[in-house]
């Protein structure tokens, strides 16, 4: 590898999950367990049905285009990509090509990988419809049309990535952008993200921007997780290096391979000469759509704050460490939870500590996600308030937190239930202190002989009598005062 550098490009497909309906159909756009429940006639290609463009999907796609610093076209066109496959009921997919220009052309994204800034050029971003999904079983294949027509954003990068780590860091950044911008949940478990990866090797030292220096491009289809992307790239780099070592690299033809998750290898699908001719032409049922400057400006103004921007604010405005801020923005759900907790008056640092340590620690340990918990920002703010007002101790708070996390109860309810509320009533503590002293005349004697550390023992007796609810500071102070009076 010392003499070669990998050139890696990605095609990242991400479903837009945040529209009410599908991209060219009025069927609901939501992830459903039950097959074939989100279907309109157009999704199954019934004769005479026509596509109708979902404006919200276009708006979100344009937003992604702007975030990626792409150029937006003056007029929006859609094209038909014609091919036969059982999951494609119309026999064509409505998508966009590069001519006429798609929703985004020639942008770039800067992201971080192992603390280093990298920039990848975006060739284009286009809006299209997803195909149905196939469920293979020994008895046969079932087609589920829930996914048919779900809006899909396909992003195509230039081969500016050079390692599996960079590719994954790029994908994670994109996932974060889609989530923060409210475009998609970008959940690969729901099949919302799918990637095609292309890998070639080039001799080190040559000009990377000149395609003439690039090696033979190998495209790997159907990589459906970030881990898969990492493994597929590493496997493919190794495979191509071996071909070089064996002197067979030049014989290798441009080809498409398939990522086989089970064996962790890539397998030959077809060579370039067998590439499918998709016979693209402009979709005649969708008139060209003028994208007005006013609308584009409006969308630009609506772009929500993304992870980086929020992270900076946490560091600069709340004094959070970079380390913690990075954790807080890792998932939009964490950052949203954090900001809401603060907006309810909680101390930013305390809230950050609770989330980064206790909340994420518990999620990790219990293998839960933010969707599984009943803890709300309201409850966390309440818990922090209970501590700062001295009603419960930090130690107690940890128990309360564990109980509040999934029980649906509020911290106050738990504190009351467990009789935890800290006793800060001075008169009551004086009374109990004297009870303790009355019960321990021998200890008072020891005190008088100069063993002042018995105060700690006696304070412990107060705590015991109050089942730990007495304010420990107050209890010690009271005991010290009361024993002097004897």
């Amino acid at each position: 590898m010392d003499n070669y550098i990998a050139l890696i490009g990605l095609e990242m497909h991400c479903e837009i999950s945040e529209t009410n309906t599908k991209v060219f159909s009025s069927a609901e756009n939501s992830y459903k367990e039950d097959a074939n429940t989100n279907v309109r006639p157009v999704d199954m290609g019934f004769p005479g049905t026509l596509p109708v463009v979902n404006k919200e999907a276009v708006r979100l796609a344009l937003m992604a285009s702007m975030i990626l610093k792409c150029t937006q076209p003056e007029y929006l066109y859609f094209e038909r990509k014609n091919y036969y496959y059982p999951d494609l009921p119309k026999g064509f997919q409505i998508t966009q090509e590069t001519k006429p220009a798609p929703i985004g052309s020639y942008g770039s994204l800067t992201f971080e990988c192992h603390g280093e800034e990298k920039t990848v050029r975006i060739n284009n971003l286009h809006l299209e419809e997803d195909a149905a999904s196939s469920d293979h079983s020994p008895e046969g294949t079932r087609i589920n049309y829930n996914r048919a027509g779900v809006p899909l954003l396909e992003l195509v990068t230039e081969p500016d990535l050079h390692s599996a780590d960079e590719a994954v860091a790029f994908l994670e950044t994109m996932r974060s952008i889609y989530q923060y911008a409210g475009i998609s949940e970008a959940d690969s478990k729901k099949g919302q993200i799918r990637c095609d990866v292309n890998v070639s090797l080039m001799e080190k030292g040559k000009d990377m921007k000149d395609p003439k220096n690039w090696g033979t491009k190998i495209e790997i289809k159907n990589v459906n997780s970030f881990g898969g992307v990492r493994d597929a790239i590493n496997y493919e780099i190794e495979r191509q290096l071996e071909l070089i070592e064996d002197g067979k690299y030049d014989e290798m033809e441009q080809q498409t391979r398939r990522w086989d998750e089970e064996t962790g290898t890539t397998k030959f699908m077809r060579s370039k000469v067998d590439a499918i001719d998709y016979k693209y032409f402009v979709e005649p049922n969708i008139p060209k759509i003028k994208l007005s400057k006013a609308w584009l400006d409006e969308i630009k103004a609506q772009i929500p704050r993304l992870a980086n921007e929020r992270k900076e604010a946490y560091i600069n405005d709340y004094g959070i460490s970079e380390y913690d801020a990075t954790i807080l923005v890792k998932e939009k759900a964490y950052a949203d939870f954090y900001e809401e907790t603060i907006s309810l008056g909680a101390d930013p640092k305390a809230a950050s500590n609770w989330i980064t340590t206790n909340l994420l620690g518990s999620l990790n340990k219990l293998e839960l996600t933010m969707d599984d918990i009943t803890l709300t920002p309201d409850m966390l703010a309440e818990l922090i308030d209970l501590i700062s007002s001295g009603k419960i101790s930090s130690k107690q708070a940890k128990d309360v937190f564990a109980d509040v996390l999934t029980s649906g109860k509020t911290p106050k309810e738990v504190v009351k239930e467990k009789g935890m509320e800290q006793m800060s009533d001075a008169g009551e503590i004086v009374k109990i202190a004297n009870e303790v002293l009355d019960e321990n005349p021998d200890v008072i004697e020891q005190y008088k002989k100069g063993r002042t550390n018995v105060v700690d023992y006696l304070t412990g007796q107060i705590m015991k009598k109050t089942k730990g609810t007495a304010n420990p500071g107050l209890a010690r102070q009271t005991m010290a005062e009361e024993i002097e009076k004897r």
Partner: protein
Amino acid sequence: MYMDKTIEELHEKLKNGEVTSQELIKESLQKSHELQEKCNAFVTILDDAEPREVTDDMLSGIPYGIKDNYSTKGILSTGSSNTLKDYVPFFTATAIENLEKHGAVATNKTVLDEFGMGGTGTTGHTGTVKNPWDTSRMCAGSSAGSAAAVAYGVYPYATGSDTGDSIRKPAAYCGIVGYKPTYGMISRYGLFPFASSLDHCGALTRSVKDAAIVVDAMKGKDKYDMTSFDSKDIHLYDSIDGKVKGKKLCYIKELCDINMYPHADSELKEHLKNFMNKIELCKKLGMDVEEVSVDQTLLNALPSVYVVISCAEATSNMSNLTGFIFGPRAEGDKYDEEMKNYRTQGFSPLIKRRFVIGSYVLQSQNKDRYFHNAQRVRRLLVDTWKDLFKKYDAVILPVGSGPAKKLEGSKDILDPNTAVLEDHLQIGNFGGFPSITIPDGFINNLPVGLNLTGNCYDDINVLNIAYALESEMGYKGQTVKEGK
């Protein structure tokens, strides 16, 4: 006998109680069976059609026919193709739904050339449709069944669809009115597509005013068709006043001058002579009519431009026909074999030929030479006509090269000498122009027609001129009296 009357007359009679909707339906069904026997015009006769309440709506309670490429809920809708021979849709085309809202009663579904892809009426899966004026002749297509039924007096109107001339040519061959309005005036939702950028819905009737009434009811913006436009302020029927004095028309020398056809037969000669007489009539009505010249090379490109664009779109549009979700599923070891068998067995050879052409012109190595060039020439033709519309209210031209052709020995291949004359109505589809055919006479006891085409959204002007001419010619409301 009522079914040979116009919509206006029938509405009057229904309102004053001279006849009931039930009686009209009974007569329409009886005539349907009669014509089926004679000409094979229907895929389905709806014997259980129910009468509708007669209201102030002109169409209420009156029977009509639906071309079988309109999706009708619960009623067999075949597109006259074996690939959909058992297909019963669960939704109704918007245009039909609109007619139903107006109280219209469908009594049958009419035969077409398979999926509208033919001009003879001979390629439907139920067999050839014969012309009721002379059963040895064709109706032309693709709205063959609709044209035959309206001409025979099965009802006053039927729906049609028009991708090249599929309403306007059969209307001429059957001696009736055929009107397709501006592209987008009637929603195409639920119309089985042939070539989406050229497909129009429309109506076949026996009078211009009836055509206006029917399209008034069918039209309207539809949330399911992005190419449909809002026309609620356009009232076609109410706007026809017959005032045409000072209107300007033109006809095209290259198409209408008999000297352009050195090998003209007697039918063509008579047809053009008859047409020129109607030009004189226009002048008598106070219209200015001028002869204009259009580049012959451009005109000659017309048939190929149409073939390239329509076949390309058709290939893609009909890729949904695989037999998996609807249609009779074919046998096969694997899905691709099932698909191949279904399509091989289901489509007629004519359609398959068009699919091959469509695929060929879209292949990446051919696309620019054929498909993109065809789009460019389409634009040139449309611009040429738009230029004419700057000066003229409408272009007036003869339809075809004469009356209906003989079925025997007919092929769907055109005589190169009259190819452009046979095909010029396609310009109306290229530009989405409103276009109407009306009967303008007889040759050898067979009807012939002329066509008026105007600029987009100028439907009222076109209808008005057609109405004025119709009123002077005496073919309004004609039905087949004594067919051979």
